[in-house]
């Protein structure tokens, strides 16, 4: 890799694609800067193709005012992020600029900064000693970042074994200070290590021992996820849904209540006001598990829909790379990207501008491969020191026209293990979260390790109960179809019973009020309690004279169950509603199990 800068000049401009004439070697994906001679602004760009001696670069900003002949300077690097203490709670753009440091109300073209404060001092506590043998990713010592020990690690790009030549004693150092010197085991090469390092975003960080099959439940407090379609630590999932189905609300809920140590929200081509909501609310909201403010465990990467399209692709990679960095410290990282379709569209715009032959819906041919290899960067990793860290990735997909057969959804389906399909019909009848209970799935329910984990940590018959509940829902749906075809009177009363029992599960368990203080977050113990109680209702037999009575009865049941959901778990209020409900049902209950 050449590191000295080389200069070229602009030859052609079409929107944000510029062709550059240069008489020197250029690396594909190399970062360069175009100077707009008219205004003096330096615009960051990335080489994406070389064709008949010209280098095509995509500029991460508007190219307004650029002229033929304007200078282009190549840096010798790919797009890279700076990794070190101080990233937590930051609001970054897709190229890792700290948005809070940019002056003025508007994002002026060509203003870049380094997100990490290199001059800031931290107290460094070494955890290794001189002469110890280390390799890439090994922990050398740590500094306090917010609430946890931020590990200073052996640079990830080093290959082979190194010996610690010297390490600084406990004390305060600047981020840019050298805290450790490494010597190559079978050579003389010396490497100086400061508290920060750089890493190219398109390459996965793989300085760990191995990746394991996932097995641990990642609690989200959302019943339709945790119980019916559970997500695992290190797992992958996606949420496709037409607009207006509550994709964003669901993602916000996950980001607030998921049992992860660090949440990275990549707002990728979505509405700016949604990010503002996070900016404003997360410093106020508390993490129900630790009591700390949510913002303390959150990093926001923000390329909203009006920010430059070319930086959109970069934004998801920036987010993933930062996630991988914190995973290396043994944290459970949850990465949320809203929405991956916008990223795919950004790829399409560029591919189109480069006049590549298009694939389905004019998306690039290698879309599936790009999406798969991105999802593959998540996982549950065993680190060099035996500790574990994970990246759970949940992306949303915005299918064009709500059609789940479109290329981005199809490609993502191949890559992700959990599928949370948002249904227009459920959103229309305000059944939120509008996750379709029949179409959605979590492949993890089939994993042996997961089943073992559930048995041990929730209940012996947990998976059985989940499957039973799913079956009740399915049968209720079938009964509903029959009722609709044949009419209320013409079907046996059991059909109404079946349908209404599925409605009980739907209203009292699947639906959850994201805007209610209590109901928005349901810990797994509470989910277990409610699931068992509801299954008990579903298994019971009741004495009904006519279908109108069935309706009336279950509406009352649903109402009381909902009141329970709105009450604090096991509070007096909660127990009162429970007793009321038990008494109400006792009148109609007949001995024996249903069917």
């Amino acid at each position, binding site marked *: 890799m050449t590191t000295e800068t080389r200069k070229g000049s602009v*030859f*052609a*401009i*079409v929107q944000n694609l510029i062709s550059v004439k240069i008489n020197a070697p250029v690396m594909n994906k190399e970062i360069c800067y175009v100077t707009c001679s008219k205004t003096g602004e330096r615009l960051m760009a990335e080489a994406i193709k070389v064709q008949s001696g010209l280098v095509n670069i995509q500029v991460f900003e508007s190219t*307004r*005012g*650029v*002229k*033929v002949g304007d200078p282009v300077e190549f840096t010798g690097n790919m797009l890279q992020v700076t990794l070190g203490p101080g990233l937590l709670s930051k*609001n970054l753009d897709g190229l890792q600029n700290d*948005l*809070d440091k940019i002056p*003025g*109300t*508007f*994002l*002026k*073209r060509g203003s870049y900064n380094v997100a990490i404060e290199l001059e800031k001092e931290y107290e460094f506590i070494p955890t290794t000693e001189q002469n110890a043998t280390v390799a890439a990713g090994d922990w050398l010592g740590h500094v306090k970042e917010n609430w946890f020990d931020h590990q200073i690690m052996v640079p990830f790009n080093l290959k082979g074994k190194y010996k610690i030549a010297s390490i600084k004693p406990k004390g305060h150092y600047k981020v840019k200070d050298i805290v450790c010197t490494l010597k190559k085991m079978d050579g003389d090469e010396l490497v100086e290590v400061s508290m920060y390092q750089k890493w190219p975003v398109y390459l996965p960080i793989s300085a760990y021992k191995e990746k394991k099959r996932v097995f641990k439940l990642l609690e989200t407090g959302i019943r339709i996820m945790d119980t019916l379609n559970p997500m695992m630590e290190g797992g992958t999932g996606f949420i496709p849904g*037409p*607009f*207006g189905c509550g994709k964003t609300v669901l993602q916000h809920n996950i980001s607030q209540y998921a049992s992860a140590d660090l949440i990275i929200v990549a707002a990728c*081509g979505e*509405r*700016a*006001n949604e*990010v*503002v*909501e996070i*900016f*404003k609310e997360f410093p106020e909201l508390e993490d129900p598990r630790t009591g700390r403010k949510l913002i303390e465990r959150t990093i926001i990467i923000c390329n*909203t*829909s*009006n920010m430059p*399209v070319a930086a959109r692709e970069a934004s998801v990679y920036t987010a993933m790379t930062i996630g991988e960095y914190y995973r290396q410290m043994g944290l459970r990282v949850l990465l949320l990207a809203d929405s991956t379709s916008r990223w795919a*569209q950004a790829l*399409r*715009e560029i591919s*189109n*501008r480069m006049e590549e032959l*298009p694939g389905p819906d*004019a998306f690039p041919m290698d879309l599936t491969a790009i999406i798969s290899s991105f999802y593959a960067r998540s996982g549950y990793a065993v680190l060099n020191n035996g500790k574990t860290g994970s990246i759970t990735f949940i992306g949303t997909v915005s299918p*064009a*026209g*709500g*059609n789940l057969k479109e290329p981005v959804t199809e490609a993502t389906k191949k890559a992700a293990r959990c599928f949370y399909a948002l249904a227009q019909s459920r959103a*229309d*009848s*305000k059944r939120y979260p509008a996750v379709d209970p029949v179409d959605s799935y979590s492949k993890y329910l089939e994993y042996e390790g997961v089943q073992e984990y559930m048995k041990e940590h929730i209940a012996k018959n947990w998976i059985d109960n989940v499957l039973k509940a799913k079956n009740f829902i399915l049968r209720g749906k079938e009964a509903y179809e029959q009722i609709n075809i044949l009419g*209320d*009177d013409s079907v046996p009363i059991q059909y109404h019973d079946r349908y209404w029992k599925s409605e009980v599960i739907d209203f009292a368990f699947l639906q959850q009020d994201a*805007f209610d203080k209590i109901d928005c977050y349901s810990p797994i113990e509470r989910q277990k309690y409610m699931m068992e109680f509801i299954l008990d209702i579903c298994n019971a037999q009741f004495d009904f004279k006519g*279908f*109108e009575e069935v*309706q*009336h009865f279950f*509406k009352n049941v649903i*109402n009381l169950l*909902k*009141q329970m959901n*709105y009450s604090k778990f096991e509070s007096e209020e909660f127990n009162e509603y429970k007793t009321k409900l038990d008494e109400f049902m006792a009148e109609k209950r007949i001995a024996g199990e249903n069917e």
Partner: protein
Amino acid sequence: MNTQAFQKVFTSLVTITKATCTVRAEGISNEEMALVDGKPAQVVKIVGDEVTLQVFQGTSGIYTNSQVVFLGHPPILKVSDELCGRFFNAYGDPIDGGPAIDGKVVEIAGPTVNPVKREQPSELIATGIAGIDLNNTLVSGQKIPFFADPNQPFNQVMADVALRADVDKIILGGMGMLFDDYLYYKNVFDNAGALDKIVCFMNTTDDSPVERILIPDMALSAAEYFAVEKNEKVLVLLTDMTLYCDALAIVSNRMDQIPTKDFMPGSLYSDLAKIYEKAAQFQSGGSITILAVTTLSGGDITHAIPDNTGYITEGQLFLRMDTDVSKVIVDPFRSLSRLKQLVIGKKTREDHPQVMNACVRLYSDAANAKTKLENGFDLSEYDKRALSFAKDYSENILAIDINITVDAMLEHCWGLFAKYFGKHEIGIKQVLIDKYWKET
């Protein structure tokens, strides 16, 4: 747009197509404006010394040696308080016979607001229409379109909303507007005595279709002036965004780009986002709220234009003729305001969210009952009550000709609950029922 001294003039045109021409020229900057034989044009592509220009009014009548004068700047607008009460074309030139505007020159389609410098929208914009205020509350800094069929009265509703809303400036961007509708707006604003707070950028069906791609940027540049520099509350009306997209498709087609779904350009999402995301609540107190119209063909919202719009805007409003009460209502099922959570139950009464949801749920029960009826089944006693409720709700609350406060809407709803349902049937938190239930 006049030629001035020291502007670059070239006369060697090498290519002329329907909408573009290519001229040999040097020292030209990207997106610069030019005059080709006096016709406004913009640089869209530069390859070496060949500069391709998009000629907004088409290239008929242009010679291979026509004069191409480069103006040295991208599309600009002069902004000042003189804009108020004036009507302009897509280039920002007056069309009302008044004098030219003097003011600060701004490039249109300027930079993006830094998201961390935005304020969270939190001010309710009351319209008096329950389909909006009660079910889909408008918030300052929001962007929301009407999805409407061309025969629906969206222009009237927009004008009503604009005049009732408590804002400092109203900026109307008309794209492909029928001349009659243009006069309608002019009259309505004039009669309401509101002309001094209106600025209007107009491209009617008489003008060239490609010109209209400049309209939203012109309107929003004016809006940014008032919102950012004067800290005013600005409401921007954009109609019809479908015609704007059609113009984009024409341009992209002429630039030989590969079309995507419904023959729209691949960049449609970004193009629309750049416009709609100009809506913002600024920290200084100013705000830009965008109310747009996207006409549908046959109510199809899966078409690329409404589909992409829906993903960008903060909700959408549907108008529907309710044949049971023969009034136009704002459809409670398909309409949505994403920002309503920021104000309902906070700036309005605490029972607002639950009452709103209960009404829509009961209204949906009525819709199911209606389906049953249409399929020839007997209705249960509950179904009948739901149907009566729906009629009452539609006629006395949802209809767009009703103009009442949010509190009155909520009171009305509780009245309807008590009239048609029992407490256990409305699915509202007990504490709220205890407080607001109206015994009949």
